[in-house]
């Protein structure tokens, strides 16, 4: 990642701290994560220190500093999903992937995250993989869905 790349990426944003979260979204959309080297360019663009940028990006769940796995598996931890059996689904998913939330499987295929409500409360428990929504997920579904993604490679 070069300065020129970053300049191009950040061009649309004014040089003000109020654009920081939107800039971080864009950088993450581009690279899949926030490359540590990018922090310097971002800090310069919004005219603050790297420490400030880091303080902001670590505050939010959205941003990660390491590349994720091929598939981002997000399990809903909202209350409606919880009372509809979401905790079991979450445990099952952790067992199936063998990682804790925030971690990536050793074959770099899956990253497990949680979210505190997708808004599919009426049809939970909900799991979202790479933007694809799975609703009313059962324990068996956890295995079959992951198996399906494993096949895709």
């Amino acid at each position, binding site marked *: 990642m070069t300065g020129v790349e970053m300049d191009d990426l950040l061009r649309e944003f004014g040089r003000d701290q109020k654009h920081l979260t939107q800039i971080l979204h864009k950088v993450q959309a581009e690279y899949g994560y926030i490359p540590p080297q990018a922090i310097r360019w971002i800090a310069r663009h919004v005219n603050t220190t790297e420490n400030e940028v880091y303080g902001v990006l670590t*505050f939010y769940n959205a941003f990660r500093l390491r590349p994720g796995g091929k598939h981002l598996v997000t399990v809903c931890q*909202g*209350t409606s999903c*919880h009372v509809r059996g979401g*905790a*079991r689904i979450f445990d099952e998913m952790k067992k199936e992937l063998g990682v804790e939330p925030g971690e990536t499987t050793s074959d770099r295929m899956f990253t497990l995250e949680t979210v*505190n409500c997708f*808004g599919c409360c009426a049809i939970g428990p909900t799991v979202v993989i790479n933007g694809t929504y*799975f609703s009313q997920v059962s324990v068996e579904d956890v295995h079959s869905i992951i198996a399906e993604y494993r096949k895709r490679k």
Partner: protein
Amino acid sequence: MLTHPSQLTAWKARILEESPVPKKTVVVSNGTCGRASGSLAIIEAFGQELERRDLRETVGLEVTGCHGFCELEPNIVIYPEGIYYGRLKPEDVPMVIEKTILKNKVVDPLVYADPKTGRRYALQKDIPFYRKQMRLLTEDNLRIDPNRIDDYVLADGYQALAKALFDMTAEEVIREIDAAGLRGRGGAGFPTGKKWEFCRNESADRRYIICNADEGNPGTYMDRSILAANPHSVIEGMIIGAYAIGAAEGYIYVRMEAPQAVRQVTIARDQARKFGLLGKSILGSEFHFDIQIVEGAGAFVCGEETSLMSSIEGRRAVSRQRPPFPAQSGLWGFPTNINNVETWANVPLIIKRGAEWYSQIGTSKSKGTKIFSLVGKIRHAGQVEVPMGIKLREIIYDIGGGIKDGKKFKAVQTGGPAGGFLPAEFLDLAMDYDNVVQAGSTMGSGGMIVLDETTCMVDLARHYMHFTQEESCGKCVPCRVGTRQMHDILVRITRGEGEEEDLARLEDLGDSIRVASLCGLGQSAPNPVLSTLRHFREEYVEHIKHKKCGARVCKELISLPGQEARPTDRKAKKLKHD
């Protein structure tokens, strides 16, 4: 580009003239739940089938936002009759076209049948789920494609704006909102008119307005549904509000977990700009106002006003002490008015039809309708819009169809992590802001999570505490440290390691955290725990004294294998979501 209000009415007239009304129209519900349930496949199936039969000219295919009956999605409504078919599958489409569209006959298996009585209702308006609602804000969802501003104009969109800008002064607008009795729909229920007035009266070079679409309460999704289904209603409300308050810049802060809402409101905002409804000289008036859309980044605390403003400013979204209130000192120190999505959506309604009409709806102190997210162990989960003052029983049983799977009503959780529980003794409560508070809970943003005997209240309390711990901003001691202590106690109790003194500890801690925390998140964090302690103390005692979990949820306390509460048996639906 509209440069005069008369052009609005002309536009509507032109739409009516130029668009031929097809003989039949199929309207597909395509909100988040719809898509997650497979609505896109239905749309594709209809498209293909209508093409194949060469019916595209005579049969309209409309894609709208959420119709509200989420449990039965994907669903369609066929006009002009208004026939409702739910739980549709792509293979049903040919039959629907064959029988209903071409032969005007109803497809029986697809008709809604009341699970209790067995009675069938073919028309959407007759279905009990809909019949008891008062869908002032949400009925238009059935007619509006959120990508088409024409649909909104056809539904008399932006007429209220024209009236406000040209027939009313800013003060008159505020008075109208005040007289209507509109109260903030985000949870605090503060009188909206007064809030606007405070902001307007604060002298400053500039003011801001914000639409709080962070909607972090788990179990609630009506705000994102409004934004995804009828974004112009919110935009129109904001423009009117900005005019009343004297703001030139507005922000819509949408949580990133609602990508469809972000997308649709951005499209609508861009369209509004294109047509001179946002920007300089709106509708040819002297009023300038524009809206910026900011996406959240995964922090529930951003639903709190001061934290939200910190987030818009591009900083760590920690909360700030109030006073000063946002109306005095908000974004970058300027007076700022923040309202919830549903509140803004009510504004055009009030201006269009008048405060007097509006104030007839609801109770003496809570006017208008409220959209509730009716979810959990309810038979018919979805979005329900009802007049304030409706009885809880009516919502649960008449609209919601009662408890799923033949179970018993245990309680309804309202107000999310800041709220409490209303057990069976409150089924006859008239739902309005003050009654719910008096009953020991809060209305919150309208979440209603229905619970039955398979819900462990202790586990649920622990779940809420865990949520608070994850979402606490970390600035103040009572919330950051205190809720962890509460959480640890609850974990012990659910593991069978509870002690007698734990209940007193929880209450002491809970009471202290409520008064000592810096912001609403901490101040209300103990509420679910205190509420369950009040109404379901015996469950706690059972966990502690007898090491038993009656609902069979707490893993360590379940003695026999295979007796865990099973999640629903339905097979997962999987469909593409762009």
